[in-house]
């Protein structure tokens, strides 16, 4: 028997899948023909999975340069009548916000779905934001799954709904859905493939003021039809318990936590539950039935009180007496859990949980104090470590000339290199959004007297680093802009981008180079350096900082993780470095203090290199003042 995979044509079979794989499977089942995305945790595996099977299903899949473009790719395909999808993390929706607002006026020709991965607790994000508000603002209906299985089912169904109502839909995933795992039952795969065709329709597709005025009523009508249908969708389910005093409205994944919490408390037979799978628009009739049957309501949802506000408005508008709880007892920050929902329900019902949470809090706190911190770190052999050594050495040298106490400023950005905000690099002073470092540098340049060295990665440069670069040229900002080019979107899983010469579907592509773009933008100082040639890199960056006007240095060194993998596959030997104890000065510590490489560790009174971790990058040998670090000659 052939092993079951995410692309298997095996309806009814069960597969153990990551939530993001399940979403990809839903798209496959729906016969999606175009999928586009920009990588971002926790959404990246959706497109990654589709890229792996695209050819088998006649699907076009791309990593776009940013989320706005990704959404436009999907919208353009939908305009031509085919089913299309864009996926992104929550903050990516901010980038795509502009076309999104007008897309909802256009509606969908071919089924159109935006998959958004929210990240409660900001596990891998710069903020926690609730994407449902963007959907509210844009009149986009939202599906919110309660499990990995439902994530697949909703995705598959979303395209049918989108075509039935002629509207763009949003699937709101969260970290514990996308990076949750579960058994999913596979469905039928649609084999329908449409020939895309663009039918000109200026009234619908070209938004001059007249278009906005003409299409807004149509959008509102579409939304009204969806609002009426919400009560009949299977994703919304009312489970009434006779005589229940408490009703719970549980949205998305919160429904799973609620079921477990009630089971834990032994309250299954005493509480009515409304499972909400469409937070926008809400199933109003079902909600009113529940409101009429109980004395108190608890709304359980992750992040903001979105459903809660709507329910409160419904209660207020009808002069009802039922008391509505929500974020007064359920945390607004971070992820929910069975325990958190259980505590909220216990508080409202007077039950007690069989676990002493205060005791557990104390235990966790005591243990945390004895644990070593284990933050993620730049990998051994990472070219960014070399780049940051060159950047900070050069910047400090120049800063001294500005006057006593003047520190260089490092507007940073989003990627692996954000980790340089930690010791020993301390080379990230700001981190706001993709491309934000270059933008902030523009503002700082006109008001402070200090070297400003902004840096971002290669993929981030293509994503949103180019407009602020042009801005610096045009508005004469005296800044140094560094592109940390490791030829990968490494933090999110090594996805290809325009600088890698490869597409999502594995085809060769034109290599777009950051230095060519910088020159074309009119930057007068543009250099490319190998960061592992530390001396030259430092000297070049120093020249760039001294240059009057915007200067660009591209630090180009491969991602160590990718390089190591390739070397291992090719059977190439890796010759690690070692520390010669006789030459090493025990009080020096320069290698540890300046580099923070996970391969260099203190052992007793001395310092050693863990040969199993060392990639042979040579950076430590270059900075060792005693020339005590040498490369093994054989392995």
């Amino acid at each position, binding site marked *: 028997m052939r092993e079951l995979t995410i692309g298997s044509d095996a309806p009814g079979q069960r597969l153990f899948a990551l939530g993001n794989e399940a979403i990809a499977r839903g798209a496959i089942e729906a016969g999606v023909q175009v999928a586009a995305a920009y990588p971002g945790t926790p959404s990246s595996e959706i497109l990654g999975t589709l890229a792996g099977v695209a050819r088998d299903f006649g699907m076009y899949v791309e990593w776009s340069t940013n989320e706005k473009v990704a959404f436009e790719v999907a919208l353009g395909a939908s305009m031509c009548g085919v089913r299309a999808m864009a996926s992104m993390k929550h903050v990516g929706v901010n980038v795509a916000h502009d076309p999104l607002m007008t897309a909802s006026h256009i509606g969908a020709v071919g089924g159109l779905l935006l998959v958004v991965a929210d990240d409660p607790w900001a596990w891998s994000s710069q903020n926690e934001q609730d994407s449902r508000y963007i959907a509210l603002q844009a009149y986009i209906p939202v599906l919110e799954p309660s499990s990995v299985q439902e994530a697949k089912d909703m995705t598959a169904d979303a395209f049918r709904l989108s075509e039935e109502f002629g509207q763009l839909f949003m699937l709101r995933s969260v970290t514990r859905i996308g990076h*949750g795992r579960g058994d999913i039952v596979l469905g039928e795969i649609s084999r329908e493939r449409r020939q895309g065709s663009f039918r000109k329709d200026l009234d619908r597709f070209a938004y001059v003021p007249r278009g906005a005025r003409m299409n807004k009523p149509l959008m509102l009508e579409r939304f009204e039809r969806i609002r009426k249908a919400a009560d009949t969708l299977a994703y919304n389910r009312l489970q009434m318990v006779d005589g229940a005093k408490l009703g719970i409205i549980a949205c998305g994944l919160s429904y799973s936590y609620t079921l477990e919490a009630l089971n834990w408390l032994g309250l299954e037979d005493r509480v009515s539950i409304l499972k909400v799978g469409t937070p926008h628009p809400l199933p109003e009739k079902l909600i009113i039935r529940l409101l009429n049957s109980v004395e108190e309501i608890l709304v359980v949802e992750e992040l903001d009180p979105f459903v809660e506000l709507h329910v409160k408005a419904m209660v207020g508008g009808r002069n009802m007496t039922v008391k509505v709880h929500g974020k007064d007892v359920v945390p607004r920050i971070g992820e929910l859990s069975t325990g958190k929902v259980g505590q909220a329900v216990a508080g409202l019902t007077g039950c007690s949980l069989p676990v002493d949470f205060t005791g557990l809090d104390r235990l966790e706190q005591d243990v945390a104090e004895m644990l070593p911190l284990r933050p993620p770190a730049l990998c051994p052999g990472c070219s960014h470590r070399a780049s940051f050594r060159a950047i900070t050495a050069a910047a400090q040298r120049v800063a001294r000339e500005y006057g006593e106490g003047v520190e260089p400023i490092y507007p940073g950005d989003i990627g692996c290199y954000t980790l340089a905000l930690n010791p020993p690099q301390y080379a990230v002073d700001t981190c706001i959004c993709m491309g934000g470092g270059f933008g902030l540098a523009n503002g700082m340049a006109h008001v402070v007297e200090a070297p400003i060295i902004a840096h971002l990665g290669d993929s981030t440069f293509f994503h949103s680093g180019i407009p602020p670069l042009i801005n610096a040229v045009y508005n004469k900002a005296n800044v140094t802009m560094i592109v940390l080019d490791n030829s990968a979107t490494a933090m999110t899983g090594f996805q290809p981008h325009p600088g890698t010469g490869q597409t999502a579907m594995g085809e060769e592509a034109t290599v777009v180079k950051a230095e060519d773009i910088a020159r074309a933008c009119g930057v007068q100082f543009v250099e490319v350096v190998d960061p592992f040639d530390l001396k030259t890199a430092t000297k070049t960056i120093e020249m760039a900082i001294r240059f009057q006007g915007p200067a660009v240095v591209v630090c180009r060194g491969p991602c160590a993780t990718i390089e190591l993998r390739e070397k291992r596959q090719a059977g190439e030997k890796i010759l690690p470095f070692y520390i010669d104890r006789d030459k090493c000065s025990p009080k020096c510590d320069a290698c540890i203090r300046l580099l923070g490489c996970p391969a260099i560790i203190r052992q007793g009174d001395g310092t050693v290199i863990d040969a199993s971790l060392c990639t042979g990058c040579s950076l430590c040998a270059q900075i060792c003042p005693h020339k005590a670090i040498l490369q093994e000659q054989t392995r």
Partner: protein
Amino acid sequence: MTGEFNILLAGVGGQGVILMSELLGRAAIADGLRVRGSEVLGMAVRGGSVTSIIRIGDDVHGPLIPRGKCHVLVALEPSEALRDIGYLSKSGLAIVNTTPVVPFTVSLGQRDYPDLARIVETLDSVVSKVITLDAARMAREAGSLLAANIVMLGALFGVELLPIKMATMKQTIEARFPPKVATVNVRAFDLGYQACRQSLQ
């Protein structure tokens, strides 16, 4: 299977925690069990802490183990065994690999690494039984240092509480890897299983 069985896998990026949960999930499905879980990915290759959750049973709905309800903790690294201590159940078990992976923050002098005895003692005050084993040694004996995670998977079955059949687990391992690697891994699994059995007797 009614009820729930909760497993927490803890380790450091690169140790193969996610692979363990994948294998467990596949085997659970092969045995007709309902399975849920989750992990925080993204930081996994950069040496950070990694935990993965596997939950089996008909009463399981959510992706997270409720605090105080973890039946077995499998830690591929000693200090990581403590990081999620609040999830452990009083009647639960902890299986700990004794080989530390010292984070660079210790080299930078920010914190000391706790000694093994103290880690075991702390766990012992919470769970009913702590099983320690040298997975690195057994992995080497099995034929590959990379198989330490499979040794720990074997040890997990050694507690003989899992709703997954051992034969199914081994078949899943055999199906997942090329023959040579599969042989090493099954050997590693058996060594971990036996070590755990001995430790419990």
